[in-house]
């Protein structure tokens, strides 16, 4: 059985234009995530918010090993994956804001970004839930006799889910073109790798399932790209799935609601010394690819782009109340409501009065005007003006991280 080269190819710098674009995208992701955190603190973003600060090299290094017609599928930590595929930051930020121009129409939020046109096949909120779907996408590619590859990213925690073993097995059995990439950021939420996985050399976890492993330094975009490029080549040409472990570190909490009591400040500081973004920028300056001034300009451009994204998101309207039931089903020729209860009977019982009205609304997808009015006036459903906040330890303590 052919296996991927154990030693990654020599890490040479890509063409200057490509190198600059990688730095720009890593910078955009960094600045986007920082601003998303600020917007969360200012209650513009609701729910949970998982940032990938510190993991930018894993995102850019891997995605840039793909062709445009390859697929990328990710997890609940997926803002960067949307951005790297080219989804405009305006639409990613609008999704965080829950607005109609969000890349999922405001339906998904932070954990459920999606951009079909760019073959970003989604962020998924269930740990390990995206692995079988990745295999299905790859099955369709294979079935169509195309040489498209699917890159499926997930965290170290997901390597303990049943879907990990099940999917690697079926992918190897059916020779599906999937690169499985475990982004090992050292923690499954707040549980350290050595406390959640008996085997901590994660690249080996696929061996017994017929999936060879590779490893890259996820703090180094060049190494990540080199290893992923080899993995993608192997999968595309040899029709054998590969598991790549990217060693990285999440600089911020698991989500914004994370008091980070499971790790020391010193540990975080030591990883921050290996911050992939300045490391790559300094390398490009040192190698003469960019000037120091250009490095600053790239940063300023990223900040300006994120400013524009916030402005756009803030100006985008919330989805209309009438859209609540849109896209529960593909309706084709049917009318909305048909799939709940197929009643269109205008001559329904005239005598049951108010009780029947309530039932009709419940099954017929009509929004009572009193409710929309009350919500608009802030009278119902909101503990905090502007949004609902999950009652986690950090939020309950009033921590505004």
């Amino acid at each position, binding site marked *: 059985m052919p296996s991927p080269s154990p030693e990654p190819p020599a890490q040479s710098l890509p063409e200057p234009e490509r190198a600059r674009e990688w730095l720009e995208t890593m910078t955009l992701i960094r600045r986007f995530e920082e601003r998303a955190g600020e917007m969360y603190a200012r209650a513009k973003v609701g729910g949970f918010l998982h940032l990938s600060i510190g993991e930018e090299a894993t995102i850019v290094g891997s995605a840039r090993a793909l062709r445009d017609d390859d697929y990328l599928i990710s997890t609940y930590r997926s803002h960067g994956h949307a951005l790297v595929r080219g989804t405009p930051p305006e639409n990613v930020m609008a999704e965080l804001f829950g607005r109609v121009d969000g890349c999922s129409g405001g339906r998904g939020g932070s954990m459920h970004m999606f951009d*079909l046109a760019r073959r970003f096949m989604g962020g998924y909120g269930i740990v390990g839930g995206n692995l079988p*779907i990745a295999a*299905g996408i790859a099955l369709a590619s294979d079935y169509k006799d195309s040489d498209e590859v699917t890159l499926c990213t997930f965290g170290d925690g997901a390597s303990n889910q049943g*879907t990990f073993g099940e999917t690697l097995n079926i992918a190897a059995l059916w020779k599906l073109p999937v690169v499985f990439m475990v982004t090992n950021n050292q923690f499954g939420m707040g549980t350290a790798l050595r406390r959640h996985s008996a085997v901590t050399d994660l690249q080996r976890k696929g061996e017994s399932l017929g999936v060879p492993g590779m490893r890259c330094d996820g703090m180094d975009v060049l190494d990540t790209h080199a290893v992923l490029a080899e993995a993608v080549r192997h999968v595309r040409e040899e029709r054998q799935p590969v598991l790549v472990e990217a060693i990285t570190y999440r600089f911020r909490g698991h989500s914004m609601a994370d008091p980070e009591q499971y790790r020391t400040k010193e540990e975080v500081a030591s990883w921050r010394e290996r911050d992939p973004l300045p490391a790559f920028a300094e390398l490009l300056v040192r190698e003469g690819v960019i000037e120091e001034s250009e490095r600053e300009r790239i940063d300023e451009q990223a900040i300006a782009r994120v400013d524009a994204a916030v402005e756009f998101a803030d100006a985008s309207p919330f989805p209309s109340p009438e859209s609540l039931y849109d896209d529960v*089903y593909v309706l*084709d020729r049917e009318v909305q409501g048909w*799939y709940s209860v*197929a009643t269109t009977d205008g001559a*329904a019982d005239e005598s049951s009065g108010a009780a*029947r009205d309530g039932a009709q609304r419940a099954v017929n997808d009509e929004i009572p005007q009193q409710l929309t009015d009350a919500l608009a006036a802030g009278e119902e459903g909101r503990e905090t003006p502007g949004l609902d906040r999950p009652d986690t330890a950090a939020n309950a303590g009033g921590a505004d991280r």
Partner: protein
Amino acid sequence: MTQMRYREALNAALREELARDERVVLMGEDIGVFGGAFKVTDGLLEEFGERRVRDTPISENTIVGVGVGAAMTGLRPVVELMTINFALLAFDQIVNHAAHIHYMFGGQARVPLVVRMPQGAGHQLGPTHSHCLEALFLHVPGLLVAVPATAADAKGLLKSAIRDENPVIFIEHESLYGVRGEVPDDDEYLVGFGQARVAREGSDVTLVGISRMALTAERAAETLAAEHGVQAEVIDPRTLRPLDLDTILASVRKTNHCVIVEEGWPHGGVGANLAALIGEQAFDHLDAPVQRVTGADVPMPYSKPLEDLAYPHAPQIVAAVLATLNRSSTSAATAGGA
């Protein structure tokens, strides 16, 4: 018309849709070389080959998830799960993914996936292979749910399910696989979702039977007519999502009495939901509370005498109808007399 067994009707539907649409792919445990645990897919591997009829490992959640991903990117997978109890292993992919992807990604992706599975008691398969769990799937917006009781409906609904753009939970019944029925020969014979079948017309009471219980209700109706002079109208909804409530309400307005028969558990069941809808929308037409005849509120026992007590039979339905018509105060009739 051709006489064929329920399993043969399903097999014909799969064969016709495989032949009609290159995007249709079958996946499941033992559906190929073995021919299917209940022989529904018998012969299809030989006819269509391993690319389109795929034996899978025993990994229910993952094979449904593979179907989800393949459906999102252009195929029309039909996944077979060996029993409905095994579908519980796949609940994450069915509920969190198949049912929600179209909505949570703002309508960008479609999941035209069919997940087939048999349910039902009567074969002494005990507490992990015999349940009727259609209510669990009925609960979930984003899913369509079919529960065919006849060979013709099995074929017509499965063909419609495969052509639908939405994820469909297609629930067959283990006791029906060998039952024969008349099936139209037309390759384009389709049964639309959301269209109930009035199996028997009557004026005294409306009997709604779910899945196999549609047939049991018909037998009860024959007894009611022959021995009690009661004309029962028997309605088989055929699909639970969407539900053809109009046909049921029209019948209730005519008969003013309703008994719902299901094999599943009483609490939070199909009948509980339907009784609420009837109460909300036709209260003034009811001369008695809606009655339910359900499976017993127990995990399914293995021993034959106990298993027989744990799901409804025609005599219980007859008794429930008579109680309703007498305006007796009998409460919900659970199998086993609970």
